[in-house]
């Protein structure tokens, strides 16, 4: 096992796949010569050359359109959208074209492509560079959606996404880029659509994603020590496909569900999970479902405001300890 940062795991995952398969190409803004604005793709240009690692103009529709056209005709592109907020300027290509073309053509069109993007808060960039928009993607039929929380998952899920025949949107949490973690040596390929149980408790099941996984784990420690509440923590990892088997089983085991979401309240992914649990696991529940989300507001930028907007460890501890006895 080597220790890598979340950021280095991005480059490691892309490099592993480019090494293996010549059809894999990588494009985006500032990704080649500059190594990415988050320095997550440093070294790829030197290793694979300008034919395969390409800087693009600030043209998100062109970037994703080009990735789509290439995927339809035999390549396996990885496209970077610098900030997930910018998906809004190329959402037609994602939601109308990439996601739907296979279905509309009755299976004629192939679409093996990956879109990577930096998502989420923690960098004080404000409402147009710090949003969590994974819920936008989750509601579009035809696109797979993953959001890794650990360096090993970054590498493994990028590899799995590149090898998948369907379009996959990977949300990297930008404040996790410096985080270090163990990454398996040698080839590492994960599986899409699998949640992971990170700890088991008996009083409630917390379902979290990306940065919120770390806050859920920290909160679970405090809840155990200071409030005598023991929590199961599930890292969802993949919103589409969704591992409802794991989530249903773990919620049934504790009788309580808590979702912790960085996306704003309305139509957050936790609402879908809550709906599934209410529908299929109602009689196993011992109390109401708890959703902890960012409020339904645009994200403010000042550190004090941002810290009091997205769910914090303190808020998670408070809400769970007040509502679960």
């Amino acid at each position, binding site marked *: 096992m080597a220790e890598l940062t979340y950021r280095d795991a991005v480059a490691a995952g892309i490099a592993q796949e480019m090494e293996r398969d010549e059809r894999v190409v990588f494009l985006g803004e500032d990704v080649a010569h500059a190594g990415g604005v988050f320095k997550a793709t440093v070294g790829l240009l030197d290793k694979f050359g300008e034919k395969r690692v390409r800087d693009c*103009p600030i043209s998100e529709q*062109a970037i994703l*359109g080009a990735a789509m*056209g290439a995927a339809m005709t*035999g390549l396996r592109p990885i496209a970077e959208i610098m900030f997930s907020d910018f998906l809004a300027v190329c959402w037609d290509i994602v939601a109308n074209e990439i996601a739907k073309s*296979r279905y509309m053509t009755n299976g004629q*069109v192939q679409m093996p492509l990956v879109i990577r993007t930096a998502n989420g808060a923690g960098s004080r960039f404000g409402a147009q560079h710090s949003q969590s928009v994974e819920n936008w993607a989750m509601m579009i*039929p035809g696109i797979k959606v993953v959001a890794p929380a650990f360096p090993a998952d970054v590498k493994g899920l990028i590899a799995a996404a590149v090898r998948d025949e369907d379009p996959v949107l990977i949300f990297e949490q930008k404040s996790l880029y410096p985080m270090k973690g163990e990454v398996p040596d040698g080839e590492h390929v994960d599986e899409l659509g699998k949640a992971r149980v990170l700890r088991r408790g008996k009083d409630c099941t917390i379902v979290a994603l990306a940065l919120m996984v770390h806050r859920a784990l920290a909160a679970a420690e405090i809840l155990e020590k200071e409030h005598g509440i023991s929590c199961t923590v599930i890292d969802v990892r993949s919103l589409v496909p*969704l591992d409802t088997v794991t989530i249903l089983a773990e919620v049934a085991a504790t009788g309580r569900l808590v979702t912790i979401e960085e996306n704003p309240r309305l139509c957050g992914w936790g609402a879908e999970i809550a709906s599934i649990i209410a529908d299929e696991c109602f009689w196993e529940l011992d109390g109401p479902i708890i959703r902890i989300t960012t409020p339904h507001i645009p994200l403010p930028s000042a550190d004090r405001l941002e810290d009091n907007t997205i769910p914090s460890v303190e808020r998670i501890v408070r809400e769970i300890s007040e509502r679960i006895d």
Partner: protein
Amino acid sequence: MDTSVKRKKTSGTTEDDIGRDIRLELFRMQLELRLCEKRAYDLFLQNLIKGTSHLSLGQEAIAAAFGVAMRPDDYTFCTYRGHAHTLARGASMTGVLGELMGRECGLLGGKGGSMHLTDVSKGAMGSYAIIGAHLPVAAGAAWSAQYRGTEQVAVCFFGDGTTNIGAFHEALNFSVVWKLPVIFVCENNLYMEYTPISAVTAVEHPAADRAAAYNLEKIVVDGNDADAMYRTATKYITRARKGGGPALIEAMTYRHSGHSRADPGKYRPEGELEKWLERDPIKIYRERLLGLGIVEATLTDIEGEVMQQVNEATEAAKASAPPSLDGIYQHVWADGGAAWRN
């Protein structure tokens, strides 16, 4: 180019740079596109086709010229006004009419409809119903061809209205910077849906006058002249195939019908349609072929064959069952299914 409505004298012989065989092919293909499109209109009137439809009546010379000029493994990307471009790559008429009628035999099994005709096996890589979306996608296919070294070319058709959307400009800049083998073909039929393009555009030629901004040549062609279109198509396809990069071609034409099924085209000034009908590409071409010495019987034979082809396709599509309901949950994903959870 002079876009006013008048006939131009064309020189040529049956054995010039185009030649008799290709001219007959161009004639036949224009007729196929015309008669199939007219049939689609008739089927609408009979309520056998539901939804919307955007006809290319009057614009056939452009699709036909490229259809004849392209290599079988080249890529076509077109818009929701794409029946002609899809047929021009060799998609079956039964598949096209069947899709319009929502039948099992449709190219897309009834899941796409008129605005999304696609036949990947023929290089018809899709009809796109969001204005401008397919220009970057065509650039991507061209990038793939360049990367794989296959000398394939992508041809992307769109209307004059598309030149005012961002994706048009993004795709042009991107394609020129990467020197991609892609030909962008603007079919300027003078109207952006219901509005004259001149009323909403800063330049006279909505595509060609923007070419200079992307370091491209200004190219305006008579889109109702199949020979002129064929020569232009061949020239720029050949150049792109050899690594010479993209071209932006503006083909002047006119649609004989309204924007879509819902539009009778009442916004057009009196007499405009009549003038353009005199410049009907098929009428022009027929007269030209006769002038070049091709005998009338050759043309009437072709006309009879194409009509029979359209009739047979119509009957086959009518006889086809509605699509199976199984299709609703098929092909969301590459595994053939629609599962979003385990």
